[in-house]
């Protein structure tokens, strides 16, 4: 894609984007998308949460995976930062701790694309925040 410079460019890109976002699902309905929430409290940021969030954005963009990537607050696992919560359509949210780039890649290739469980899940009956 060409570089976006202005809001006008963005408007033009929107149509291209719309055709790329698969039409089978209603993308306004987050339940139909993969949702990744990255914990971005002070400890998360300090341990590289921003780079991990960027990694998911890059991969989802280049692999055309229907997903939303958002930030969330402290999930209470400071010892396991960066921490992310992944929700597949129709599934319960799972929390992964100590997410490195290679772990992030494994989560995308195995869990998100194939539905296979991978190591690093923080088992808990915690409540998602925000």
């Amino acid at each position, binding site marked *: 894609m060409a*570089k*976006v*410079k*202005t*809001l006008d*460019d*963005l*408007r033009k*890109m*929107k149509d291209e*984007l*719309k055709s*790329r*976002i698969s039409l089978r699902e209603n*993308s*306004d309905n*987050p339940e139909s998308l993969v949702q990744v929430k*990255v914990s*971005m*409290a*002070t400890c998360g*940021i*300090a341990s590289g949460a*921003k780079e991990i*969030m*960027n990694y*998911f*954005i*890059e991969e*989802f*963009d280049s692999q055309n*995976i229907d*997903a*939303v*990537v*958002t*930030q969330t*607050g402290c999930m209470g696992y400071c010892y396991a930062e960066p921490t992310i919560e992944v929700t597949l359509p129709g599934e319960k949210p799972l929390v992964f701790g100590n997410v490195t780039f290679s772990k992030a890649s494994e989560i995308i290739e195995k869990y998100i694309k194939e539905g296979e469980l991978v190591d690093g899940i923080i088992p808990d009956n915690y409540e998602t925040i*925000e």
Partner: protein
Amino acid sequence: MKDLAMHIIDITRNSVRAGASLIGIRLDVYKTEKLLKMTIKDNGCGMDSEMILRVTDPFVTSRTTRKVGLGLPFLKMNAEQTGGALSIQSQPGEGTVVTATFDYSHIDCVPLGDIQGTVALIMSGNPNQDFEFEICKDESVFALKSTEIKDALDGISIANPSVAKMIAEMVDTNLLSDLQ
């Protein structure tokens, strides 16, 4: 925190948690004074004056009703070690303005970091809040509002990963370079 961009993510998270719906992020660069001013403004729940004292200096209080965080003290430390300062203006129910100044010619000044990526992650990563980003250097101003982006997107979620990349490109192309 390694750079200013990380502080921006951290301080805007405070605003989101304070229930803000609109958050302003502004960077002012004063070239002659070699001064960099970062201002984060929100319309969240605000703080009373006792709380402001407590959050900027965690050791001042005798009360331990809540755990004191590290985000604002880190920012204060990074500003002060360049000869700059941190100030917080806030009223309960009104909102909060956090301002940090840095002498960017100082050897201990943290780098700016990835401002464009950070603005993108903040706007895209908090689809329920609105953000106004401004960077002002001498006479030039670059401003980007998430409401304008949402309008232009016409139904596509701002949290879509491709949109995050586009926002970073928009800021990158327009970001005023040669700050240091």
